[in-house]
């Protein structure tokens, strides 16, 4: 390395650092802010249905420029051409034209579709629509584009396919109403995301307070389906609306979903939408205001045979509106047309009321009601039960089976209490199949039992396809962890560890362990707010240890000519060691059968 290189590298670094942009605003929520496609003062140009694209903006602008230029040229035909070209094409905001992408959105119309409804009259109903949206690198910008496309579709009213799925579907929005413009305030960091919709004068046409409330509700619900938008302000022909229409509806401030609950059925289903093709597991979600927030659901064939059923609770009820979402598995031999039915049991006589019936196509699936929704065992590192190797028998299994009172685990009937069950399963050496089920449909877990085996927590200093050099350490939790940390001087007496774990590595002795040819690798994948453990192939895992310039383990790994060890980048701020620690499952001969990475918060 020369001094000149050093100086050049310094200059280059300075150049790079000076390109740094301004810091973004303080991130309050996991949703970033929306930016209007044009400058904040200028309204967006409403998209053409199905043909909205960045090119259209440029084309429109260019067309406008031509329109100005053309008369001048025509006038001068036969004479000398005009001295200067009249206009230039304004630069587009996108550097590369992006073709529109088909996107699913929800539109809100009205229909009298709820059976035994406690609320009379046509009520809000959600239907599916596919629109074409310019997608961008920025998800908030894409949501902004999708909102505009959805509103334009809403204004064009329900179509024949909507009417076939929801008989009697209608809209309160007068035909011919146009979206003249829209903006979204870049205020999400400081408060709710607000969309301002500018509509043509037709929007106020007609009469009847229900019709007026209905059309406002349709727009508010359609716009607020996107997480980035919480409220809507209305303008008519560019003027903000304080009092809407001849009915004199006062709009005091931005409108939210809460302002229009009078148009809602007591159970609104927003997923699945009419006509959807559903498969197992299926999620039912929406808004409701039922007695004690209780909801019942059924998955039925067209003829009324029940495929699956259950119940769930919304976040609020008995006079207040809440959200609900429930996912469940079902079993079905052949694809069929059917319904997702959501209702509540009447507080008076228990009969179904506020029944919403959503026509769907139900895919074939394995599974049945009462099937366990989660089955796990306390395996080190959080390895999933299925496909794991264990060294102790009997194995304690716990699980969750919603809506069941008992369940069969490995042939024995086990009670289910508060949706939870546990059982001790005796394993035979080698491959075991643990079957958990309700007697009709079973979930099978494959567990390999290696008697005489051991499980060790270790740091890996070197990995290769046929052997691992491991430095055993201790993974402590709870009181034991606190005591050890105090002993080692990591925390003061009386303090406790922030994450309830402590790693003690007192013996740096390396052990070289042979690796089974088919050993399994599980690695934690930290998702925001939770950790999942997923299997990777040994080859993929070994590839993570190829040189990428980020060696994690200092010391033994850090030799110029030595073998490479670089661990995946999930770095943690623990004392001493960085990178994963691993749980190694060894057979009686000390061959590594399974490697599970330990997530360190």
């Amino acid at each position, binding site marked *: 390395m020369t001094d000149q290189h050093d100086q050049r590298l310094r200059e280059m*670094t300075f150049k*790079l650092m000076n390109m*740094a942009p301004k810091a*973004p605003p303080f991130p309050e929520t996991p949703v970033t802010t929306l930016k209007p496609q044009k400058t904040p003062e200028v309204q967006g140009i409403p998209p053409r249905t199905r043909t909205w694209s960045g090119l259209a903006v440029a084309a429109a602008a260019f067309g406008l420029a031509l329109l100005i230029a053309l008369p001048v040229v025509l006038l001068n035909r036969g004479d000398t051409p005009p001295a200067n070209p009249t206009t230039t094409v304004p630069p587009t905001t996108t*550097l590369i034209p992006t073709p529109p992408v088909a996107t699913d959105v929800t539109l809100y119309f009205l229909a009298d579709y709820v059976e035994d409804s406690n609320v009379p009259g046509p009520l809000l109903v959600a239907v599916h629509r596919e629109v074409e949206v310019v997608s961008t690198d920025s998800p908030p910008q894409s949501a902004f584009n999708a909102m505009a496309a959805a509103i334009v579709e809403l204004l064009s009213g329900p179509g024949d396919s909507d009417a076939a799925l929801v008989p009697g579907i209608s809209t309160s929005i007068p035909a011919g109403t146009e979206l003249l413009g829209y903006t979204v305030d870049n205020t999400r960091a400081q408060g709710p995301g607000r969309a301002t919709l500018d509509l043509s004068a037709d929007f106020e046409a007609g009469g009847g307070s229900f019709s007026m409330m209905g059309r406002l509700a349709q727009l508010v619900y359609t716009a607020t389906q996107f997480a980035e938008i919480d409220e809507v302000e209305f303008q008519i022909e560019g003027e903000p609306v304080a009092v809407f229409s001849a009915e004199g509806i006062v709009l005091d401030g931005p409108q939210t979903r809460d302002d229009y609950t009078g148009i809602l059925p007591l159970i609104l289903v927003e997923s699945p939408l009419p006509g959807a093709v559903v498969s197992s597991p299926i999620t039912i979600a929406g808004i409701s205001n039922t007695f004690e927030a209780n909801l019942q659901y059924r998955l039925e064939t067209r003829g009324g045979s029940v495929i699956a059923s259950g119940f769930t609770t919304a976040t609020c009820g008995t006079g207040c509106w809440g959200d609900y979402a429930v996912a469940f598995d079902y079993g079905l031999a052949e694809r069929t047309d059917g319904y997702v039915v959501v209702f509540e049991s009447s507080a008076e006589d228990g009969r179904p009321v506020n029944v919403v019936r959503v026509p769907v196509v139900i895919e074939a699936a394995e599974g049945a009601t009462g099937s366990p929704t989660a089955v796990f065992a306390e395996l080190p590192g959080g390895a999933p039960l299925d496909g794991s190797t264990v060294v102790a028998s009997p194995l304690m299994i716990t699980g969750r089976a919603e809506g069941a009172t008992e369940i069969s685990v490995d042939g024995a009937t086990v009670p289910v209490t508060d949706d939870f069950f546990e059982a001790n399963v005796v394993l035979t050496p080698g491959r075991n199949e643990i079957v958990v089920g309700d007697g009709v449909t079973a979930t099978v877990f494959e567990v390999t039992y290696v008697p005489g085996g051991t499980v060790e927590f270790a740091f890996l200093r070197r990995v290769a396809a046929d052997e691992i050099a491991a430095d055993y350490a201790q993974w402590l939790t709870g009181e034991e962890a606190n005591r050890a940390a105090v002993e080692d001087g990591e925390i003061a007496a009386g303090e406790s560890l922030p994450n309830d774990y402590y790693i003690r590595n007192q013996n740096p002795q390396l052990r070289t362990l042979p690796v089974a040819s088919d050993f399994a690798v599980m690695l934690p994948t930290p998702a925001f707010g939770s950790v999942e453990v997923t299997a990777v192939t040994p080859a993929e895992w070994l590839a993570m240890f190829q040189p990428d*310039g*980020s060696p994690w383990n200092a010391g033994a790994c850090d030799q110029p000519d030595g073998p490479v060890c670089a661990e995946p980048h999930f770095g943690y701020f623990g004392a001493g060691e960085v990178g994963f620690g691993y749980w190694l499952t060894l057979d009686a001969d000390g061959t590594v059968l399974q490697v599970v990475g330990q997530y360190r918060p």
Partner: protein
Amino acid sequence: MLEMTDEEIYRKYADDLVRFATGVVGPFDAPDVVTDACLHAFGGKAWPTVTNHRAYLYRSVLNQARSHHRSTLRRRVREMRAALPEQTGLNEADLDVLAAVDKLSVQQRATVVLTYWEDLAPAQVAARLGISEGSVKRHLARARSRLKELLDD
């Protein structure tokens, strides 16, 4: 002692973090990387116990940068070259720098930034990144050799 809110802490270090992130992922993605890193940091279980916020956030940004898709920088440079300088605000020399930076690994870029922008000695760089001094020197050597073309002309 008065405790700072997350927002105050963020405001104090945000510009530095974005600049550091620029050195590690380039100017286009730096703000997103910082936002994501800070969200993870503020929301994490360890945050209330952290005393050295600056170091913690730096490491968060570095971790976040690692998971960032590296090919973005290459594509952006291509796009930028095809566009007009007035639109992008970057001249040819700047683009050459970005193209060169793209040749380095995240760890190498971080080492370069800490060495040349923050003027840290190898031992300090090693402490900041959680690696050995030997690694730091190796990274710098590799960075220089990969940038030989750019640095030579």
